[in-house]
């Protein structure tokens, strides 16, 4: 019984995370300026990381943790590089 509850809650959580990524994608396409798009890219990275963690809980396998950590690190690096580019016009100066 509890296994079925856990399964349905995981499915609902994954649906909510995908819906959040859809909202961010809509704002990324529609966003009036470049900083909105960078903000949404960062948020999409975080949502994808949470989605990978949820898939890992569903699968019961420890492999997905490393993938989530790598996604988090890459998201931070790319967002910082894009913000730096917006401010200065170049990434490394």
């Amino acid at each position, binding site marked *: 019984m*509890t296994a079925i509850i856990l399964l349905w809650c995981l499915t609902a959580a994954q649906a909510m995370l995908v819906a959040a990524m859809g909202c961010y994608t809509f704002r990324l396409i529609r966003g009036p300026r470049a900083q*909105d798009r960078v903000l949404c890219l960062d948020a999409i990275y975080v949502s994808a990381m*949470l989605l990978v963690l949820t898939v890992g809980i569903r699968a*019961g396998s420890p492999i997905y943790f490393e993938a989530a*950590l790598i996604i988090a690190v890459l998201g931070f690096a790319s967002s910082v590089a894009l913000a730096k580019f917006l401010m200065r016009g170049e990434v490394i100066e």
Partner: protein
Amino acid sequence: MTYAGALPAWAALLTAFLVLVGAGLTLLGAIGTLRFGSFFERVHAPTLGTSWGTGAIVLASIVCFSALGSRPVANELLIGVFITLTTPVTLMLLARAALYRDRAERKPGVPARSILRPPRGRDQQGESGGGQ
């Protein structure tokens, strides 16, 4: 879900609750990003997902895997600490970049530079002697 029989009931229910809370908070942040009007309001909304959205899902993962006993539990804390440390850095950089761009375009409603930092150069003998 082949392992679910091995999970005790309290762990399964706690994992389900925490996962739902985390995903719901992330979805709320995304809806806020859609609905807010200006960029400086919009930059606050995704932090709902990066603070307790991430925290709740990481806690759910810790509860699930420690109840399964397949590995030690401290690994997911790494993700939580990393997200907590990096999100303010990213968003502060982004907000500073947006402020710089708005100021360069002379948009109305943008605070002047002298509000944030005392002016340097001209009135050095005034109260703003030290600069910075």
